[in-house]
């Protein structure tokens, strides 16, 4: 085992994994994290705590992760390259490990022009791939990026993101290989709505043999309304939302119920794709939907390993 992570244990015992997502609040209110954590407890193997997603200032991933773990969840903390240089990142990761956090998702980060501080300076000292390499070396070689030795190393189960619907499409599986080479242990994909394109990407992934060494979690998001899908299609990078799904949500009498059905169906379908090791359920500002989705998809109770 590379870490003491529950997620790693579930995945390495070849059980179909479920992770969820918890967005920290735009405030210093720990109770928001606790409330959301309560919805997710028992419904997933680990929960992703976003790091100022879409470049909007929120409670930090590490601190919200600590609160979530106090509530009995295992967090996957996120680290983007947008806001910190290698000094800040390594420092925060030493702290995160010292606080008992076990899983780390390494991301480039959305550009700050999306967020609420578009006038900020961005960092991008590293990119997601050099970040992965650095974090793996901290764990496996016990060295900082500068090659100095670390006495007590941070031991993370290391994750990365994959964006099967972004361009250039033919490069997307190759980029996954780069992430594997750089040190990724598990992968969370962008939200899957276009199953056909996703299957094609997975085929390319299998041709490179990556699914044998990487645990790939397919991204699942229950749509709450047709409007949300339209917004995602238009404005969220890396999204591919088929028009049929939008019309299905438009004609639904109870859109939230329909959204949950869509998510459950999607889980059942991605589960049949060879090389999918689990799902990452991102119920955006709708954390209470996760246990319902997991339950209906037959994924509860979560295994104790």
């Amino acid at each position: 085992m590379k870490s003491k992570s529950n997620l790693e244990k579930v995945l390495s015992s070849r059980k179909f994994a479920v992770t969820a997502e918890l967005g920290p609040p735009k405030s210093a209110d720990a109770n928001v994290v606790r409330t959301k954590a309560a919805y997710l407890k028992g419904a997933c193997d680990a929960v992703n705590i976003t790091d100022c997603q879409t470049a909007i200032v929120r409670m930090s991933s590490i601190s919200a992760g600590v609160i979530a773990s106090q509530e009995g969840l295992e967090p996957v903390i996120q680290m983007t390259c947008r806001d910190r240089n290698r000094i800040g990142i390594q420092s925060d990761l030493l702290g995160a490990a010292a606080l008992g956090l076990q899983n780390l998702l390494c991301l480039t980060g959305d550009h700050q022009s999306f967020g609420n501080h578009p006038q900020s300076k961005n960092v991008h000292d590293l990119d997601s791939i050099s970040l992965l390499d650095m974090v793996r070396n901290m764990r496996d070689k016990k060295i900082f990026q500068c090659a100095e030795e670390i006495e007590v190393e941070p031991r993370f189960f290391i994750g990365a993101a994959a964006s099967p619907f972004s361009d250039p499409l033919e490069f997307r599986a190759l980029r996954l290989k780069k992430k594997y080479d750089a040190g990724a242990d598990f992968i969370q994909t962008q939200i899957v709505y276009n199953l056909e394109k996703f299957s094609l990407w997975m085929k390319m992934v299998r041709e490179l043999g990556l699914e044998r060494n990487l645990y790939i979690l397919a991204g699942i998001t229950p749509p709450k309304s047709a409007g949300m899908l339209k917004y995602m299609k238009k404005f969220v990078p890396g999204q591919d939302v088929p028009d049929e799904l939008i019309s299905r949500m438009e004609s639904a009498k109870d859109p939230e119920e329909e959204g949950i059905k869509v998510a459950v169906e999607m889980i059942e379908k991605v589960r049949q794709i060879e090389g999918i090791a689990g799902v990452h359920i991102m119920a955006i500002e709708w954390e209470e939907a996760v246990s319902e989705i997991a339950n209906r998809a037959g994924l509860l109770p979560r295994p104790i390993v």
Partner: protein
Amino acid sequence: MIIAEQKPLREILNIIDKDKKLLVIGCGACVSICFAGGEKETKSLADGLFLGAKKEGLELSIETDMALRQCEWEFVEPLEDRVKKADAVISTACGVGVQTMAEKYPEAKIIPGLNTTSMGMPVEQGVWKEYCGGCGDCVLAFTGGLCPVARCAKSLLNGPCGGSKDGICEIGRDTECVWQLIYDRLKGQDRLELIMGNVLAKNWEPARDGGPRRTLRTDLLIRGEKDEEQK
């Protein structure tokens, strides 16, 4: 070339405040080519300032002049008499030219007339794009001659992020995804292997992050080479 654009007239008028005798100095190099601070722009800026001040009841006396290259001592030296007579000097050079003037004439009030944006080129009539970030350690040999440091919004060195769609960057329609261009170029040349290896943490010391850059060529120095080498 260095690309710049004129500051809003209002901003310059606010900076000149109570100065009456102004000298606007243009530059014959990059900013002439990008139509921001050449002879013509210098004159029209002077006219604009004159009229703008007049509307507010101020009578300015504005003269204009040019330096062939405002970023070199020898080209700004001949301006000495005129600079000394002015209450303020507006430089329509890039930031380098403005500072050449400021260092050459420490007594003078030097005001920038332009905002300097980037090192780039005119890609078509009326459109200029940034091409070089001056990182001090050129990577173009490995990226098909297209620069991800300057032209990727996140300076990524390992291929496109998830924000690349239809050749466009996630930050907006006017920005090409340079990694799409790099991919297409290298694929066309059958050299994709160049970007299949991972580029690990870049050394940013030769870039601005290592401190202001100073380039020394002792072979070209006329004075005190040994002192320089010891530094």
